[in-house]
């Protein structure tokens, strides 16, 4: 054995290299803006990558804190956070692909509960009363849309209401719950009206194909943003004959459709959001790679976009009517929120999590 000193030293160096490269873990917990006035940003994450997250925008400090859920609760939020809704001191984060609703304390972001029972592909939460909440669900096939009734005391699912295909956004108006059947992976054209005292569908309103989002204006009209239905030719061009364009319906208190703003030529970029300002007289929506605004007394769809830039989601801040536009340059790295004033001027931008799709206000 001819091991000389030099060889031994070389081997030792290599050994030490091999076992000493445990990199330092510098993940420190960010300072959480407890109780601050601001809003949550839902970062959807990359589909299948378990990297959904929540960010918080502190209005006073004009500062975004990312990963507030992970920082507080030391576990990942899940896969594909679809929406979040603040209700009576709690934030209900609907994590679609993980089939769950994470309930956290709105002030300190600590986990209150995780609702999983029976949830397949949940989309939105709606607080119906202080003891009852609804969660819309596309079902395991993306077609069998239901609403899961949640007891807000036990935070358990108590019953299921069959609603239609791809039950999506819900809104409470005149003690009735309106639920948009977005079609899910298929086609539907109805908004369901549910009586929360019986948890039964009492009526359907027919609107444009695949309604996704609902708003109520200052005069009590219901507004429905419908994506339309796209059929494709074998080359994936739009089969215009069998497709319908996006549309927006205005429905009065008698549940009668007053007007339907229709895009006659279907496009790939269908209506994907419908928001309203705090005065309840201006709607904002994303269509064909731009943001449009529509006043509630309009008779025709706007010819030109309000902001000619493609965003993944928008929200309107009920505090100051600023438009928060969520930008996703990709689905593997950070997105941004661009904050615009009601005149469409860019005020500020902040880095947020992966693929931000909307905000929740408290």
């Amino acid at each position: 054995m001819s091991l000389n000193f030099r060889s031994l030293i070389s081997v030792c160096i290599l050994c030490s290299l091999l076992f000493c490269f445990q990199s330092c873990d510098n993940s420190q917990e960010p300072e959480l803006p407890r109780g601050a006035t601001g809003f949550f940003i839902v970062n959807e994450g990359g589909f299948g990558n378990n990297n959904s997250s929540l960010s918080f925008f502190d209005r006073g400090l004009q500062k975004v804190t990312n990963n507030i859920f992970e920082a507080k609760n030391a576990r990942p939020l899940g896969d594909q956070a679809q929406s979040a809704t603040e209700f009576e001191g709690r934030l209900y984060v609907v994590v679609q692909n993980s089939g769950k609703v994470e309930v956290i304390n709105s002030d300190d972001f600590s986990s209150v509960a995780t609702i999983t029972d029976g949830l397949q592909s949940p989309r939105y939460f709606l607080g119906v009363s202080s003891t009852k909440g609804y969660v819309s669900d596309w079902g395991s096939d993306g077609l069998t849309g239901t609403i899961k009734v949640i007891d807000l005391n036990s935070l358990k699912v108590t019953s299921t209401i069959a609603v239609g295909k791809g039950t999506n956004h819900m809104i409470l108006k005149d003690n009735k719950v309106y639920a948009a059947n977005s079609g899910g992976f298929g086609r539907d054209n109805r908004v369901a009206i549910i009586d929360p005292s019986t948890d039964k569908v009492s009526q359907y309103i027919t609107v444009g194909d695949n309604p996704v989002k609902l708003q109520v204006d200052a005069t009590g009209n219901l507004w429905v943003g419908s994506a339309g239905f796209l059929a494709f030719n074998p080359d994936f061009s739009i089969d215009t004959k069998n497709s319908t364009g996006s549309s927006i319906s205005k429905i009065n208190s008698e549940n009668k459709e007053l007007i339907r703003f229709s895009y006659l030529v279907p496009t790939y970029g269908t209506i994907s959001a419908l928001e309203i300002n705090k005065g309840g007289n201006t709607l904002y929506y994303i269509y064909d790679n731009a943001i449009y605004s529509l006043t509630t007394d309009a008779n025709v769809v706007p010819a030109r976009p309000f902001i000619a830039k493609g965003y993944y989601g928008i929200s309107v801040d009920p505090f100051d009517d600023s438009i928060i536009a969520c930008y996703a340059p990709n689905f593997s790295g950070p997105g941004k929120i661009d904050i615009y004033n009601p005149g469409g001027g860019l005020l500020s931008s902040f880095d947020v999590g992966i693929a931000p799709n909307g905000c929740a206000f408290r």
Partner: protein
Amino acid sequence: MALLANGAFAQQEQVADSVIQLSEVIVSSSRLESYATGHFAYSIDSTQKQLLINGSVSDVLRKLGIGHFRSYGVGGVTTASFRGSGASHTSVVWNGVTLQSPLNGQTDLSLIPAFLIDDITIQAGGTVSLYGSGAIGGTMSLHSRAKFNEGLSLQSANHVASFGNYFNGIAAGYSNERWCFASKAFHISARNDFEYRNKYAVPSKNETRQHNSFEQWGILQEADVRLNHDQSAGIKFWYQDNHFEVPNSIAVARTSQATQRDQFYRSVATWRLDKSHNHFSYRFNHVAHLLDYRDPYTSTSSLSRFESFNNTLEHVASIGNVIEATSGITNIHESSTAVEIAGKPSRNRTALYTAWMYQLKKLKTTLGIREEIVGNEFTPVAPSLGLEIHAGALTPFLSVTRNYRIPTFNDLYWNDAGAHGNKSLKPELSWSEEAGIRIHRKFWQAQMAAFNSLVDNWILWSPQGNFWTPGNIRQVWSRGLESNASIQLPLGSITSELSLRYSYTRATNRRVYDNSNSELGKQLFFTPQHEGTAMLRTQWRRVAWMLNGTYTGKQYTDGSNNEYFAMKPYVLVNSWLTYGFMHKHYSADFTFECNNLFGQYAEARPGYPLPGRNFRLGINFRFTKPNQK
């Protein structure tokens, strides 16, 4: 295949064999590897491979801690990444046949069973001048070797492992002075229904992996003939059928229903003329691959097919005893059909290449250059320079190469409701430099290299308007260090060897040409900075024992290096015990393997767990009857 009972460390012998018996062995591919001067290289010796004969080539390399692999777990698409390179930056060459898919530029290593491959050579660093488009991060050469005058051999391998994993392989070979035939067939099936702790569930709970099985079978047929004293020819035919269940992340509520089927034919025919100073060879190969991916949940049914024909004419000249020059022309015609690709795109690629090796006393110099025409467009010229100085036990080396990768059919022509290809993409282009040293002493050897590589026009897909589309949107800078060392520790009748490997890889976005500035300067995701392996092999008479631990450093999983999404570092320890047995024409060895000895929880990527402790029992049996000489 060297049997363990014949000595566990047969590597040197094997190498010596193939040098001495060069006239006896026909290497049906070209010998371009020998021109890869000035690069860090890994070799997998036959005993190591023999131990891991039941899995894929990526299983072998992963267990031995060589290179970095990206996958979604056991089975399913696995791609290699050397030095922080992307999934389509490793050139995989089987007997001279490029296996990268023209659709996505990748080679799925889970589709290459170790049983069908005689030897594996891996070389880190770019060598497009020798191997063509895509060899930006490294090259993996897989060979079968035809040995003449060996007589009859029969081999069987039967293995059973945890989670319903069964491997069965048979091989038969016959060769005389003129002919050499070899046939191999295998079948693998695995349920992979292992238990894991689901930390994504609240509260965390034990679960069994669902929808994670696979089945593969294939045959390889080889025939070689010496036509006369200076001419030889050979054919190989490889068919394989592979079914995979594609599981969901464990953070996903639904059980996946997605499946993937890969079915392929690969054939190659060669002819050689060996004169004393001139060698000519011609190679024709044909590859056809069918990929059928279905996911009932999203109503996806994606059927794609690609096919390529390749003709290569090569000439090797020895000039004096100091220069060897290889020059060749190669033409590839590749085409594909896919639901998402309009028409049937095809392209014709013709490349001229030459590589010169000049050995002057202690200095070995190689120069290579390749120019390729794709359709009617010239790719960037790809030159390479390598230097090695053989100074006793020390061999310092250096190389500089320019490399490129042409866009794939998917990049160019994809067209569906959500994504559009981009016909104006430019090739990715890189410069790579490397300097290192090899030390070869009687009882120990070591190799260390520092590398630097800048890949510009890196192609990535991102959402643009209503569609996803690819663009040349990154410039990536990779630099780092690779090292390995081994030391033999003979102790009476016990021989032992300790091997260590370590690599440091810093691969960052040096420029971003789109709107993702927050990714600037950040480490590429799924690219650990630190990786290492320690391996101990001990042989006592007919018993061999091997223990190894592989360390995979922290991996970021997003573009901004978010610590919350980072995958923790982990160490996997594997151990093998083998008993070899020989009697007259018969030999057998029995292997017991334990993987993940300490049941470490590890993930291939977030939500895709690797199995905990698992076992394998295998018997390899061999009958050989040499020709009467």
